[in-house]
């Protein structure tokens, strides 16, 4: 098996890369563009914000070809369903695409989702024809509800946004994977390449990250590391790992020993 023919789909759109990356927190737009290139990502998240009325400033899209990437606008910073829905409608008009990463936050310190508001927003957006990818807790019941509503994927957190704590509850992620048919994407919490590999080895369809790459000492190198980790984790999952055993099992034959 190669990763070349191991594609996946969201709402009927086919993708090869299973690494989705954010475009925030980089030192420069140039660095953003180089990190995206090194990551091999096809889907990149962006935020929706007021234009700067001081026109001298450059724009992210001066550096990123929207024809090359699928832009996934987020609703970061929204704390109510109403604000999130309003942001998604603006995003659709700005980007001419129905894809949205829906997040409705509940608390500034943890950035944990407000799942009640999230469900409310998701219902409205699905009805309005959006392809909704919701950031949610690693909660199987929530993920099932989001699937029932008609979300195109579920994106449970591995750990708090930007924390780099990794996949704190791999067992929950496993149960979610067994409980829904839509793609499961770990969003938030990844700190290093091994974290990304763990998410993929669990069987996730993909991983979404921003800070782990943008905040690394060498973001371009980390973007490449994440690309390789996601590919390695996916291959490892597909290859089927050996069962864990408490005791040793010799790798070399016992026959033909000299004594």
């Amino acid at each position, binding site marked *: 098996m190669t990763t070349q023919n191991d594609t996946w789909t969201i709402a009927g759109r086919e993708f090869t890369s299973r690494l989705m990356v954010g475009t925030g927190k980089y030192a420069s737009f140039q660095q953003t563009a180089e990190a995206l290139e090194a990551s091999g990502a096809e889907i990149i998240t962006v935020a929706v914000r007021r234009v700067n009325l001081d026109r001298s400033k450059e724009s992210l899209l001066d550096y990123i070809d929207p024809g090359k990437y699928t832009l996934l606008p987020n609703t*970061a910073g929204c704390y109510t369903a109403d604000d999130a829905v309003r942001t998604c409608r603006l995003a659709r008009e700005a980007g001419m695409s129905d894809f949205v990463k829906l997040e409705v936050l509940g608390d500034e310190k943890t950035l944990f989702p407000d799942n009640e508001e999230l469900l409310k927003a998701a219902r409205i957006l699905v009805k309005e024809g959006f392809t909704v990818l919701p950031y949610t807790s690693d909660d199987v019941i929530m993920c099932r509800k989001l699937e029932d509503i008609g979300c195109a994927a579920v994106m449970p957190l591995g750990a708090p946004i930007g924390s780099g704590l990794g996949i704190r509850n791999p067992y929950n992620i496993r149960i979610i994977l067994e409980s829904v048919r839509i793609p499961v994407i770990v969003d938030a919490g990844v700190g290093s390449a091994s974290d990304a590999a763990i998410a993929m080895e669990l069987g996730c369809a993909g991983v979404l990250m921003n800070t782990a790459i943008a905040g690394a000492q060498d973001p371009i190198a980390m973007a490449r590391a994440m690309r390789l980790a996601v590919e390695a984790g996916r291959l490892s999952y597909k290859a089927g790992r050996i069962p864990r055993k408490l005791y040793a099992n010799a790798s070399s034959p016992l026959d033909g020993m000299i004594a």
Partner: protein
Amino acid sequence: MRITLNGEAIDIDEGSTVAGLLEHLKLQRERVAVEVNLDIVPKTAYDGHGLSDGDRIEIVHFVGGG
């Protein structure tokens, strides 16, 4: 006449349209979304959408985010 653009009060000429405002701000219409008094103005309507005194306008675009 006076409008509120992205939270800031600014004076614009009578008879201004959304398209005219974007041109004045040197913004590419393909890259923005415009809301007037909480209603989104479709890109196809920018030329014909006249602005009125007291309008509250939001112009947004994509920035780096996670």
